């Protein structure tokens, strides 16, 4: 446990030490949490070739993380419903700070930095009220500065929009309470949405799906350079139905839903784990670890183009070209057009997400 004195001393040291950039740690393209063969949990930095540039110990199984836009620092979250996150110096592996959610709150495992790196935002559950919150942190001292409503229940993924002034939040709609684990408390009345919120907490726009899809929990996001948002969903309704698990939304417009033909869509078990636009922005994909599949679509037409059978595939991000994926069985692979290639197989189990470092979202 870092005492306040040590913590402040560390900050003083950090302020005189030169700021280390991502280049100084081997210029990773992604962060990903993983379980190593010895059973330890680590936060890894990876490049597009699947080379593990660093693998820093985490106190417990990690979930998503957020990369500082300038400094080689990452905020790594515990799996939800975790009440803490650690700020890691990716050059030394040192824990620079620990973010603790206040009494009555827990993190949902996702967060985003402001474009200039001065603030950090995290999705939280106010679980007595059953309402979502976004907490605001000083990204130097990692002091909690305040919070505002997330615009819904169960906020999960959150990204900074390309304008640098707006957060887009996936309010999954599912109410949980730590005393009842991950039991979902409000399925019949859940109402997910996508909320666009400015950095002062004003809700600018909200997108809800048609009422028949109110049980399609909006969970994970990817944002294209022009502000087009891709959202991945998890279906909580009847298992005999197999609605789209991927949507596209541009501010001020109606959402578009993208699905594979029913015979393939029905094998996904209503569950998409991650979403990402490919590097050129013309292709988007979702990973479906329960259906052991990756589905790729054309963004302009919305057409389903490819299915790849990949066991326990979940992490997904943009590559130099096309897309990069990771699996819970240890594979790191690339997708280019209709071809999937496993390019590396580091001996570890990759967790749900690949977190882009730098400009790509």
């Amino acid at each position: 446990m870092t005492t306040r004195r040590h913590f402040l001393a560390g900050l003083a040291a950090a302020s005189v030490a030169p700021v280390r950039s991502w280049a100084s740690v081997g210029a990773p393209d992604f962060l990903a949490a993983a379980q190593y063969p010895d059973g330890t949990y680590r936060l890894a930095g990876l490049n597009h070739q699947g080379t593990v540039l660093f693998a820093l110990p985490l106190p417990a199984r990690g979930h998503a993380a957020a990369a500082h836009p300038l400094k080689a620092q990452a905020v790594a979250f515990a799996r939800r419903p975790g009440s803490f996150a650690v700020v890691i110096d990716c050059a030394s592996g040192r824990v620079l700070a620990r973010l603790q959610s206040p009494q009555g709150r827990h993190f949902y495992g996702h967060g985003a930095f402001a474009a200039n790196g001065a603030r950090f935002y995290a999705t939280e559950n106010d679980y007595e009220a059953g309402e979502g919150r976004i907490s605001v942190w000083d990204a130097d001292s990692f002091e909690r500065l305040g919070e505002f409503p997330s615009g819904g229940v169960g906020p999960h993924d959150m990204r900074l929009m390309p304008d640098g002034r707006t957060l887009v939040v996936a309010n999954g709609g599912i109410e949980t309470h730590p005393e009842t684990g991950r039991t979902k408390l409000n399925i019949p009345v859940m109402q997910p949405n996508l909320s666009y919120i400015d950095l002062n907490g004003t809700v600018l726009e909200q997108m809800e799906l048609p009422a028949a899809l109110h049980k399609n929990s909006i969970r994970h996001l990817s944002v294209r350079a022009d502000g087009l948002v891709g959202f991945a969903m998890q279906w909580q309704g009847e298992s005999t139905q197999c609605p789209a698990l991927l949507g596209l939304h541009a501010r001020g417009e109606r959402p578009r839903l993208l699905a594979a033909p029913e015979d393939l869509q029905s094998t996904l078990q209503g569950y998409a784990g991650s979403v990402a636009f490919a590097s050129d922005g013309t292709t988007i994909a979702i990973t479906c670890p329960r259906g052991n599949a990756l589905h790729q679509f054309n963004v302009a037409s919305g057409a389903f183009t490819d299915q790849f059978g990949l066991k326990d595939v979940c992490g997904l991000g943009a590559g130099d070209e096309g897309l990069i994926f990771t699996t819970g069985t240890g594979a790191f692979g690339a997708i280019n057009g209709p071809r999937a290639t496993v390019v590396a197989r580091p001996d570890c189990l990759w967790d749900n997400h690949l977190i882009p470092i730098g400009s790509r979202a």
Partner: protein
Amino acid sequence: MRLIVFAAALLLPLVAQAQDRAPILMDVTQTHILPRFAALSETANTLATISQSDCEPGSTDLRDAYGTAFDTWITVSHLRFGPSEVDDRAFAMAFWPDTKGFTPKALSKHIAAEDDAVHSPDAYAETSVAGRGFFALERMLYDPAFADQGTAEYRCALIQAIAADIKANADAMADDWQAYATYLTQPGGESPYRTQDEAMQELFKALSTGLQFTSETRLGRPLGTYDKPRPKRAEARRSERSQRHVELSLISLRDLAARLSADHSDIAGDLEVAFARTLESNQSLDDPMFAGVATPQGRFRVEALQQSINDIRTIAATELGPTLGINAGFNSLDGD
């Protein structure tokens, strides 16, 4: 020669392990599922009939019929797939937990507006799911806050409407389960299950989520935290049925677990021992509404019961699950 056989075994693990699940699938549907839904339909019909002639909230006959029908619902409450999830039927039977108090709000709204929907079963079925089912009826029969809202005549009509809706819902489920049972016993073709293994996995999921709900929700909600126990969050505490629901659900889950593990006597034995211990622990509680969670002693005992259920969950996940080919993926099982 031996080497060749070994290599062939490596190539064909799925074929080598494929088992005929037909006897178990037939047994679970015919002996576990269908009789329980038939009983639900029967007791719900009795409840609706009695409410027609006796809608006095304090009536022993009405409360008994309510209790008997609610008992039969709890014994199927883990079977939340297929016909039970169509049109939110399971939620319409039991809207709980109700974290934001939607049930009393929905009922008060009906009463304040003297909503005509109570005079038509079809119309009532279209009203808020929170105002339907056993928890709505519990409010009307046991909650003093509803003893004098609106007129006695409207309250009577509302009680009758909720009972009739429970009956219609139970009948629909019982009918549809007759047809759906064939999907489980004859996978492939029109069935949503492509293989016997997929049908087995659905039943295993019912067992594991049933155990999870009883542990995390039926016990977890009233337990709250040590500093802040929540006895008023116990399930159906107004009718003093909280502990009873834990018992009924465990008895039903024990039956399902025994049938699913019929081919593995060692696992069946482990499950049986764990269930017997858990049921004993529940019976010795003598705390119908889990009011005891507010005291250190009472809390300790409910926590011990919860741990005992979690031990069953571990046996199910680590011993029974793998025999059914449950995909133990790092991500696919974790959810996020």
